[in-house]
């Protein structure tokens, strides 16, 4: 079952067009052959992981199509269900994906879509555990009590147990030490050989560790900017030094060694790239010295690194200083002014009691977001779930049932005033949410944090811990986008493991624990990492309030904004008085 790629683009590269074009044809067409281990290489951000997810039916391609045996995998945003059962994907850092109460539970979850008889499940589980060097005694244990390395093996084992034709692995060497590496290489070769014997399926391994994996690969794909750029055998890749350098994946150790030996006058056939062969070639060249001896600058000290001068002093060259002022353009509105405006308007919106007043508040906040050019994605992220919640709550609040008429549809009614009250309360909150969106979208959370600390610094006289409060507020703002990213990652893992037939991006209710447990663990980990990063940056004690920035004077823009906010507050308060209480 070979895989064919037709004009496939896996990701929109963030650096599209920055790398030099290598003049390769490809245009996204490619073939993954049965019985082969294909290495997927490319610069960071090339879309290698996206390609694996596209091949595994988790994320639809940006454009193009994937064919298994001539059958298209993708129909719109849905993957063909029969093909999903024939592919397995091991994500990066797989140890984070475990969620079940027992090791056995992990296997049950991964094997459920295959509807196997119990004895076959047991056999597959035992074989997969043995294949990854784990003992069947751990089956009743909780995965949480295994060591990091065991958790990783277990996660890989759950995928191996599905015995799919195709196996895709994302960066399997990341975080492995030099001792565990040979075991991994052996396992990969064994998996490839099994598929070769069966005559169907193969392995695709995305990696940046070329030196380790090249020796066991059958074929190499160079992937960049979301597209296939070059394909060939490992021996051919070794000769493509310029190409590797152009795409930031080289020179590899093999290439550098070969180049040095060639420069020393050793006659090297193209296919030679392992230590024994290279040494033999050197020995041969010594027995039959070439006519031409290389020039040797013997005592040249080896330069550890290209000198990348970093001025140690604070002084800035004049040209850079001038440029610096241009680069360091301050945010459009001072953070203190933002906080002030936001607080004033929040006060005004919360004071509204009449629907028209609330509506005015929503329109005002929306207008501010529009003017600040808040990105559409941020709008959607906030608005979409909120709209659903509002609609549901409003409908629910309006429903009533009069038991006097007995259990019948006639007793059910809808009270518009009750629904409106709920709608109004939720809309008022929506206006506040939009104001928060405006507050965070225009300037960075760090500026907001410093603005807050600066505004509140007089409170320190009364022993109010202003700086920690402001830092906490800033970090919470920093943390919020991470939650969305991690949620996306674990829903993809759940889709891949559960062979979900739902539209890409949707999540089944039954997958919620599969997502939520690793998500929470990952968020705790993230918080811990962030705390460590803060500590590592020298933040050991509670920070002192940052010194006032003499350059951060308020310009007319800030005064106008605050004046506008005061005016709007006055309008809102007046509106409250004018409109009759509802």
């Amino acid at each position, binding site marked *: 079952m070979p895989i064919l790629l037709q004009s496939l683009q896996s990701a929109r590269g963030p650096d599209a067009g920055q790398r030099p074009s290598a003049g390769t044809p490809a245009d996204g067409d490619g073939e993954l052959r049965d019985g082969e281990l294909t290495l997927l290489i490319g610069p*960071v951000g090339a879309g290698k992981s996206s390609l694996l997810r596209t091949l595994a039916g988790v994320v639809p391609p940006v454009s193009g199509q994937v064919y298994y045996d001539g059958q298209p995998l993708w129909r719109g945003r849905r993957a063909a269900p029969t093909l999903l059962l024939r592919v397995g994907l091991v994500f990066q850092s797989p140890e984070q994906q475990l969620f079940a109460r027992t090791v056995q539970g992990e296997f049950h979850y991964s094997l459920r879509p295959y509807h196997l008889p119990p004895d076959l499940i047991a056999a597959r589980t035992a074989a997969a555990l043995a294949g990854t060097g784990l003992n069947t005694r751990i089956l009743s244990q909780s995965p949480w009590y295994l060591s990091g390395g065991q958790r990783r093996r277990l996660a890989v084992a759950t995928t191996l147990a599905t015995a799919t034709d195709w196996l895709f692995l994302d960066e399997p060497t990341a975080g492995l030490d030099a001792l565990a590496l040979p075991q991994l290489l052996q396992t990969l070769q064994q998996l490839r050989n099994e598929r070769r014997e069966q005559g169907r399926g193969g392995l695709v391994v995305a990696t940046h560790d070329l030196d380790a994996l090249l020796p066991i690969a059958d074929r190499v794909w160079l992937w960049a900017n979301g597209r296939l750029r070059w394909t060939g055998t490992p021996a051919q890749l070794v000769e493509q030094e310029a190409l590797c350098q152009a795409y930031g994946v080289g020179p590899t150790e093999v290439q550098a060694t070969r180049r040095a030996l060639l420069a020393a006058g050793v006659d090297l056939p193209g296919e030679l790239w392992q230590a024994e062969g*290279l040494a033999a070639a050197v020995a041969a060249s010594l027995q039959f010295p070439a006519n031409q001896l290389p020039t040797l600058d013997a005592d040249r000290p080896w330069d550890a690194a290209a000198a990348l001068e970093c001025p140690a002093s604070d002084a800035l060259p004049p040209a850079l200083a001038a440029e610096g002022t241009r680069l360091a353009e301050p945010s459009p509105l001072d953070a203190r002014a933002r906080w002030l405006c936001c607080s004033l308007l929040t006060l005004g919106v919360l004071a509204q009691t009449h629907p028209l007043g609330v509506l005015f508040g929503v329109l005002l906040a929306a207008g501010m977001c529009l003017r600040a050019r808040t990105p559409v994605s941020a709008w959607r992220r906030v608005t979409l779930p909120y709209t659903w919640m509002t609609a549901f709550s409003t409908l629910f609040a309006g429903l009533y049932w009069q038991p006097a008429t007995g259990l019948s549809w006639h007793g059910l009614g809808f009270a518009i005033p009750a629904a409106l009250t709920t709608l109004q309360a939720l809309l008022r909150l929506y206006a506040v949410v939009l104001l928060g969106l405006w507050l965070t979208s225009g300037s960075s959370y760090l500026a907001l944090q410093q603005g807050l600390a600066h505004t509140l610094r007089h409170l320190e006289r009364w022993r109010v811990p202003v700086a920690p409060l402001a830092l906490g507020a800033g970090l919470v703002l920093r943390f919020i986008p991470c939650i969305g990213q991690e949620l996306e990652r674990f829903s993809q893992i759940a889709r891949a493991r559960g062979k979900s037939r739902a539209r890409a991006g949707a999540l089944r209710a039954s997958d919620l624990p599969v997502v939520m447990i690793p998500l929470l663990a990952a968020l705790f980990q993230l918080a811990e990492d962030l705390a460590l990063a803060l500590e590592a*940056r020298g933040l050991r004690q509670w920070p002192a309030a940052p010194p006032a920035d003499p350059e951060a004077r308020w310009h007319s823009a800030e005064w106008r904004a605050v004046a506008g906010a005061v005016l709007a507050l006055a309008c809102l308060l007046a509106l409250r008085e004018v409109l009759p209480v509802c």
Partner: protein
Amino acid sequence: MAAAENPAPVLSLQGVRLTYAHTPEQAVLQGVDLVVYAGEWVAVVGANGSGKSTLGRVAAGLLPVSAGRVQSPPPPGVQLVLQNPDAQGIGQTPLEDVCFGLTQLGVPPAAARQRALATLQAAGLADVANTPLERLSGGQRQLLATTAALAMHPRLIVLDEPTAMLDAAAAARLRAMVAAQQAHGVAVVWMTQRLAELAYASRVVALVAGQKVFDGTPRQFFYADPPALAGYTTSHPNPAQSAGGTPPALSPRPSLQPLSFCRQLGWTPPLPVQVAEALHSRGLCCGDKPLTAQELGECVARLRLAQSRQAAGGLDATLET
């Protein structure tokens, strides 16, 4: 080396033991001695769980130890760079990220901005100074984390597997930046799993199960001769440190060719060293123990030169007779 001019060590660990409260029976670090001088680049290698990361955190002063003495520079003087570039960005743009640390030091914002820009310029990140972090590549973000640490003008920088998530080009850029700082006298402690990176170090320290089992030059690590377990000696007046004793599990196997320390640990050395080993087993020895491809090339060229001289000498001798 700068160490000779300044004999006071930047970092000094003596008999450091560390046990976590939930596993009191198992020490993560078991009496580790480590002295690092200004301008030194010490690479720390060890398997997962050998205590490498813990050692880094102890050296950075982030973990209190159970026993032993730790002398490291006070807070801004030591900086720690972690493996995951995603978890280290504190600011929203590179400029803000570098400024964050500086303002925490009490540098006035305007001066901090200038200093941050100069450091970003030197790191080649000036073009993206105001680009949101999520639009940078992983390599750029890791470069930024290191830049932000270096902008604090530390005397010691500890990097915990900084290149683990980077491609070859980004890893080379990062090493070049750290090497430039090392040339200015900054002491570097570099944890790694990539043995090819040891070539950049002035010293290699190997950890096994929380014990220091090797402390010597990269050449002593990759080549068997002189005896790998010999104590590490320096020209410093106070060579208080020595190899942490022979670990029981690592007695050298009897073999015709003495195994290098790297091989004794069961690790595969980088390709140039492998080629040199293969040459040596064929009786071809170039004497100067190459670590990198370039050194291997020079070594082979020297071998060829010597052989042709020998051939020419032989010819001269025949002519004379």
